[in-house]
């Protein structure tokens, strides 16, 4: 009898230790993906982002502490399109966790789910600066593409934790519907603002501007990844004058002193330093907050 009691105790102990209650551990490369996982995954999922919202996601250091995080993860969610190529491979190899190596079920790139913009067609050369062979990787600023990402991430989470599949699906659909509905409102506000073109620092806002019908006639970087030169700033000033561009947006992890130079030439130019990632500034906890902030920044260029 004692033996059987022992077995029962052991069984109970094992049942308590089994991962029925264990949360799925998800590590994302950027905070925007973490925001999607947080909403779609709900309380059943633990999520952590490697990069912070205030950091340029092209240049993250492969800190060993990220390897520790990845070593315990059930799922790695990356942007792909070569955004993380300088740091994520080192982190994944250092993590020594075959579950999340590229090719395994615990590794996904959201870039595979969306239609990329600015895919280079000719020969790739670094003389063009920091170009990505797969296309512009900053699709996190397009609410519609992120709605697609939410649906796909819901499916992925359901694959890893089938018992919660319905919950993930419901939350993902709710998120998608909300983002799509808000996009219509945001589009209406952009139209009302009258802003049809902006100058940005890097091609970070390409997807956002395309979604809201705003042209991007000039970039402050002479080439992607190359900091602004004096000659190029003069050229940008000429373009702003000629095209009457009302607004300059500088992504907040870049040096915004370049705005002063433009303003000294064109005092009436409006400018905003904008967060381009969730948690990139105070009070931006969700994708909705982020897009709302960007729309407000665009509106600030209107009424001229």
């Amino acid at each position, binding site marked *: 009898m004692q033996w059987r009691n022992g077995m029962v105790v052991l069984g109970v102990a094992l049942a308590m230790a089994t991962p029925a209650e264990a949360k799925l551990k998800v590590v994302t490369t950027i905070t925007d993906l973490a925001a999607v996982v947080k909403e779609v995954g709900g309380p059943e999922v633990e999520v952590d982002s490697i990069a912070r919202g205030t950091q340029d996601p092209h240049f993250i250091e492969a800190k060993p502490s990220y390897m520790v995080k990845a*070593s315990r993860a059930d799922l790695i969610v990356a942007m792909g399109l070569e955004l993380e190529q*300088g740091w994520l491979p080192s982190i994944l190899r250092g993590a020594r*966790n075959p579950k999340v190596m590229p090719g395994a079920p615990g590794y996904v790139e959201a870039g595979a789910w969306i239609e990329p*913009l600015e895919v280079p067609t000719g020969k790739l050369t670094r003389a063009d600066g920091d170009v990505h062979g797969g296309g512009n990787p900053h699709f996190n600023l397009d609410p519609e593409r992120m709605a697609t990402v939410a649906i796909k991430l819901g499916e992925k989470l359901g694959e890893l934790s089938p018992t919660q599949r319905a919950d993930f699906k419901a939350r993902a659909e709710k998120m998608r519907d909300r983002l799509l509905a808000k996009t219509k409102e945001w589009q*209406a506000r952009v139209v009302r603002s*009258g802003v049809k073109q902006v100058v940005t620092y890097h*091609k970070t806002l390409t997807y956002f501007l395309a979604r809201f*019908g705003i042209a991007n006639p000039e970039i402050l970087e002479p080439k992607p990844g190359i900091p602004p030169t004096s000659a190029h700033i003069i050229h940008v000033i000429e373009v702003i004058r000629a095209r009457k561009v009302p607004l300059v947006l500088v992504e907040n992890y870049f040096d915004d002193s370049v705005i002063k130079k433009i303003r000294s030439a064109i005092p009436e130019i409006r400018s905003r330093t904008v967060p381009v990632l969730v948690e990139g500034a105070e009070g931006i906890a969700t994708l909705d907050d982020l897009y709302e902030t960007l729309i407000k920044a665009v509106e600030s260029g209107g009424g001229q």
Partner: protein
Amino acid sequence: MRTQAIFVSFVVSVALSNSPVLAAEKKKKERSAPKPTTIITFTPPPEDPPLAVSSGSGVPLAPETGGGATAGAPSSPAITPAVLPTAIPTTPAPNPEPPITSAYASPNPRAKSFNPDVSANFLGGYRHSTRGNDVVTDDSNGFYFQEAELQFTADVDPYFRGVGLFSLHRENGAYAFEPEEVYFETLAVPTVTIKGGKFKAFIGRQNTLHSHAYPFVDAPLANQNILGDEGMNDVGLSGAVLIPASWFMEFTLQVMSGQEADLYKSAHPNDLVTVAHFKNLWDLSAATTMELGLSGATGWNQWDGRSNVYGADLTFKFRPTEGGKYRSLSWSTEYLAQAAQNNPNGSGLGGLATWLQYQFAERWWVQGRYDFLGLPVSDAFGIKNKQSLLLGFFPSEFSALRAQYDHLADDAGPDEHRMTLQYNISIGAHPAHAY
């Protein structure tokens, strides 16, 4: 020999106890069946000239011919929501989004090939030393070619990754082409990375670096004098275990032939060298890390005695989470010592180097190093005392121009003053940077 047998059996048992199941095809399938995204864009007002949304380096546009000089963008009055539905045509505007079929179906031409990632690195420059004028050597004054390095890396299959690095450099007045590191490592074994082939021994941080990744144009004195110009780099087997802890804790054990390292050239081919490294890295804050490493190596030497190497390294790195593109600071210190039994030139030799690296602008670094050899002192080398100052300009991730000044005081004669201008060029595949 017993420790080596245990090590090998450990490696084998870990390798056998895991049969990873990988679904490599999954992602590709998803890629090939894209779900078209709804495209909602605005047609630009007719009076606007076509604007290139994706234009990077500029719209060719002279200010006086600016088509939009009086054009409508800012002048058009606010459009009321009632007008909105007609303002959202379903046909894409000329520029914002390319047709779905073109790019999305084949995102990256290179992604389709099985070619390994190939890159090449070129190092060289100009140098002038107060001691370099006497005879022409590989180190003499003038323009110099330091090294061209070819690198091939690829995943072999779901289980292994292959790395080959070959170096072309000057050696004894002629060009030599040599394998630098040629190894495979495991991808599918949890917790431990097993590496086999020819690789750099994990004795301190400096010895694991390739010359193009050195913080200064040269290695610290202790590394040069104890481990040799090319560092300790040998054939063998390595296992690196990530120990579960709240910080990064890694224990690496390596067994090597010893035949490539002067310190360990034993007369008996069965004598192996054992190397151990214990690495700890803590995040002191979101911006600051501290790394502490301890290293040791032991094996038989050519004088039929044991050679031991000891090392310790301590590195602090600071990069602010806001504005981290433009400012960062790191401080590294490495200690390295040897004890070689029966060495006729004296058994002990050690040195300490400590250096600061400060990034003061996006592409600029200034660095200083203090380097001391003589802890303990060896009769053969005496005491060497060196100070270095470096200014580095990094136009992009793929190029660097650096100027370094060294002052060396030792027993060999009057103090040496040396100036080096170095270029460091990388072409080919994007490198994945180590921290």
